[in-house]
């Protein structure tokens, strides 16, 4: 038995055999072939045909729309025009690997240059090309493997496209060597409820076929577990399934203190699922999806239709919409195309919107119109607020354009440190713990090398949250949390102890957080918070809260 540690995402457990994801192949070297062109041609055609066959088979297994896509890819692998391109290059004395690479690349350029839908097909060609070259080199195919049975995927890291296309019936769990708790892999894993452990550096030593327990709740990968350990893990899997099937109740502490549990959503499509999982409203609706990938901002009418759809789905409930949060890792050419050396510290969030005020005005206008046409309780907030002056600018404009409740996201230490004055100038605050952690710890949330610093349990981050909570309580304004921190069941209780009045998270985390809050009274939550605040670092804070929590539960169980 061997244990590997990493950062667990969510509270899930999975058991199964490992399949490793192959590393991307390097570009084949352009050197003269030792074989004659006919022999190289046979090699190339054989590998193209094997890959075409595999793709067709995968299509037949997948069925539906995927079948058409995979069949089209299979045809591309054996395309007569492509084979002509390969043959011409072999005649020049190139190797089969290099000829295949160049032939696909020529079509790739052609399609990429056409833009839109065709440009997306360019990525398909890369995938086919890599598969053929891997077959020629007798290496495993790159990309997410498809062994034909359920498995635990071990990878260095996943591209967003890989994560998005994971077959959740086949992938039992996910272990990545790189990546931190706020990496895109982690966020997507959380969103899709994939049992995942990221940043497990020693996982590169795991071999295909090894049975492992992926224990996300404890950030542990156990390889070669005993039958008893497997039985215990399976019991936990069954227990969680029962928890998820339990009737949904509003979020509340053990003493009845209400803590509304809200959902983080990225488009109106997730509304039904969020409601099913017990979301009492939306605590963070990201509007980026309307803008990313577009050449110009969508019109007021187009935006209004999307907002109306969302607000209609949550009629009678609170919906907090965040205006466009672009810049940094989400660049938008029509907003700001200037190069920045440190985009996380650059013209992003409210700064970028102020720079292009017409976009903000149109968005607020569309939101106000959608609000007027529906029965939801719409709140609107601005991202990346750093000063009281920016707060006044945003709330002033929002009110002028008909928004009833306007607030700010607290993501910078500066906003947290003057939270009393910021809150005096708006209606509510919502703490974005990912960015607040990034800026407090001076650790880029996208950088694996500093991932260990990206921990919202750090007492410095908790102290800032406590300041905002205290300021909110003082003047009677709501302070929500809408970061990944709220999805951690124990940290959720700590956040309430620090003064958070609502919690918003990926819908998949709602059941675990609801169950956790029900274990503690408000005074328990404050005890947990004090224990964490008094610690030296993130790990110590988590341990202190865990130990205080087990004391609370033990005392309660001992009581008559």
């Amino acid at each position, binding site marked *: 038995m061997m244990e590997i540690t990493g950062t667990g995402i969510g509270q899930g457990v999975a058991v199964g055999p490992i399949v490793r994801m192959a590393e991307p192949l390097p570009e084949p070297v352009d050197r003269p072939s030792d074989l004659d062109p006919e022999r190289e041609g046979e090699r190339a055609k054989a590998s193209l045909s094997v890959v075409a066959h595999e793709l067709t088979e995968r299509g037949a297994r997948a069925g539906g729309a995927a079948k058409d896509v995979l069949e*089209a890819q299979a045809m591309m692998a054996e395309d007569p*025009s492509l084979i002509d391109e390969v043959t011409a290059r072999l005649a020049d004395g190139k190797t089969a690997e290099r000829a295949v690479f160049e032939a696909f690349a020529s079509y790739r350029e052609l399609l990429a240059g056409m833009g839109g839908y065709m440009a997306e097909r360019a990525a398909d060609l890369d995938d086919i090309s890599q598969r053929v070259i891997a077959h020629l080199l007798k290496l495993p195919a790159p990309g997410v493997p498809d062994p034909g049975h359920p498995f635990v995927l071990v990878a260095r890291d996943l591209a967003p496209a890989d994560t998005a296309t994971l077959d959740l019936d086949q992938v039992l769990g996910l272990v990545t060597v790189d990546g931190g708790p706020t990496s895109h892999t982690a966020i997507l894993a959380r969103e899709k409820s994939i049992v995942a452990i990221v940043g497990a550096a020693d996982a590169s030593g795991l071999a295909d076929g090894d049975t492992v327990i992926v224990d996300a709740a404890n950030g542990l990968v156990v390889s070669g577990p005993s039958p008893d350990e497997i039985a215990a893990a399976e019991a936990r899997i069954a227990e969680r399934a029962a928890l998820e099937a339990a009737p949904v109740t509003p979020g509340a502490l053990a003493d009845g203190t209400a803590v509304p549990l809200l959902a983080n959503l990225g488009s109106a499509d997730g509304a039904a699922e969020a409601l099913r999982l017990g979301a009492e409203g939306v605590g963070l609706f990201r509007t980026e999806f309307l803008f990313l990938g577009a050449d110009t901002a969508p019109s007021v009418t187009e935006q209004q239709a999307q907002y109306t759809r969302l607000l209609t789905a949550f009629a009678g409930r609170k919906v907090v919409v965040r205006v466009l949060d672009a810049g940094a890792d989400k660049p938008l050419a029509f907003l700001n195309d200037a190069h920045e050396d440190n985009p996380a510290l650059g013209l992003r969030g409210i700064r970028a919107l102020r720079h292009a005020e017409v976009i903000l005005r149109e968005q607020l206008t569309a939101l106000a119109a959608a609000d007027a046409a529906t029965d939801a309780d719409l709140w609107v907030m601005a991202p990346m607020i750093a000063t009281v002056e920016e707060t006044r600018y945003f709330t002033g404009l929002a009110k002028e354009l008909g928004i009833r409740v306007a607030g700010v996201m607290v993501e910078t230490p500066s906003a947290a440190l003057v939270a009393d004055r910021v809150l005096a100038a708006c209606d509510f605050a919502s703490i974005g713990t990912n960015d607040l952690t990034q800026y407090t710890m001076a650790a880029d949330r996208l950088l694996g090398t500093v991932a260990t610093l990206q921990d919202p349990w750090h007492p410095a981050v908790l102290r800032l949250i406590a300041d905002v909570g205290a300021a909110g309580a003082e003047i009677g304004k709501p302070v929500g949390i809408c970061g990944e921190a709220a999805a951690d069941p124990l940290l959720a209780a700590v956040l309430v102890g620090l003064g958070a009045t609502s919690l918003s998270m990926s819908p998949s985390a709602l059941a675990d957080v609801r169950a956790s809050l029900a274990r503690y009274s408000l005074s328990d939550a404050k005890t947990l918070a004090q224990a964490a605040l008094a610690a030296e670092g993130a790990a110590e804070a988590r341990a202190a809260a865990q130990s205080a929590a087990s004391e609370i539960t033990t005392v309660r169980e001992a009581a008559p």
Partner: protein
Amino acid sequence: MLERTVRIGSTHGLHARPAKLFTQAAAASGATVTLSKSGGDPVNAASILGVISQGIDHGDEVTLVVDGGDESAVLDSLIELLSTDHDE
């Protein structure tokens, strides 16, 4: 050798599923089939890459040339495929 011009019926033009159905049929016909977009160079109709890289949209006119085999039956069935809306 037979030749005919047809307007593309599929809502999203000749890519993805419609292109796949068309090139599969062209390849299976046994005849040599070329396709050209109005004024463009003819491409092998059995090549999905050749066909989709023409960027043929809904309503575009394309000319098919069939050489060999049962030319008129092949042409009829391919024209039928191109004028049907497969994106419905």
